[in-house]
């Protein structure tokens, strides 16, 4: 089995809607004013989205995630560098899960 018309239609549709939202965000933003409230709102989106990506993972997981997040933050504040912070986070969450699960 190579593929089917149904599968091609589904994949093409998924690709189309995905591209539309990705391109749409930039095109809509371009219609917003470049100063005032709208500009302030756009400026605050990256921080708000990153905070939203991080926060639920820290409270819905086991204490391992919270401990690893604290270590990640500490290493980042000390080194000001992304890679050691990420590596420390992954290592600590790995060890903490082993230790907590037993």
């Amino acid at each position, binding site marked *: *089995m190579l*593929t*089917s*018309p149904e*599968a091609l239609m*589904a*994949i*093409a*549709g*998924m*690709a189309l*809607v*995905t*591209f539309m*939202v*990705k*391109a*749409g*965000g*930039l*095109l809509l*933003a*371009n219609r917003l004013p470049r100063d005032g409230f709208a500009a*302030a*709102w*756009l*400026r*605050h*989106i*990256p*921080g*708000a*989205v*990153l*905070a*939203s*990506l*991080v*926060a*639920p*993972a820290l*409270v*819905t997981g086991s204490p391992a*995630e919270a401990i690893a*997040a604290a270590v*990640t*933050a500490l290493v*980042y504040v000390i080194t*000001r560098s*992304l*890679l050691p912070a*990420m590596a*420390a*986070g*992954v*290592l*600590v*969450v*790995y060890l903490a*899960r082993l230790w907590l699960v037993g």
Partner: protein
Amino acid sequence: MSTLAAPYRFSDQFFAGARACIPVVISVAAYGVVWGVLARGAGLSLIEVVLMSGLVFAGSAQFVALDLWTATPSSLPIGPLILAALIVNLRYLLLTATLRPLFRPDQQWKGALMMGIVSDETWAMTVGEMAKGRGTIGFLLGGGVLAYCCWMATTVIGHTLGSAIDDPSKYGLDFAFTATFLALLLGMWKGKGDLVPWLVAALAAMVSARLIEGSWYILIGGIVGSLAGAVAERLRKNAD
């Protein structure tokens, strides 16, 4: 800001972007292999894997699609598959909106075409650069092309060879994303003005993650938090 001629060469920025994204792309690769393995189990052919990774290129939407996929074409739920992709990817409206400063007003259509290659990880790295007064189209594309090639290659590898990794979270690799996003967030700290939007976003995301299934929490936290930040800014300005 964006009206200044960039003192950067495109190729330098392209490779800087690719280099910066290497750590997080390692985790993308682990999930690519796993997705390839699961896609085979769900009944996708190799051609369908190549087409979906190449054209849709959205990890979370592709994982959701596997739950709906059927091996027999006649029962394939085409409408629900497309709708699910739309809903899972709705957050990209917010993400690509913030990339506006990278493009001159006359470059917006060119920019819109480039947005297909944006993923959460390379977006995050790029806005992290932008917050430091750097960040260019070249940086975004460098990370994007690396992540794209890697996702394509690893999903195909997973489908054809299978995998020794059945669950990346066993090795803590799921946390690579959380850790990267957290470090990027800390790097964006500019002062007390960030406290309100970040706390409101975190709170809104935690509440909606608990109440609503799926990835709505990213969109809800992102919108509520950024609006709170803009309102707080306006109130402070009026108080002065």
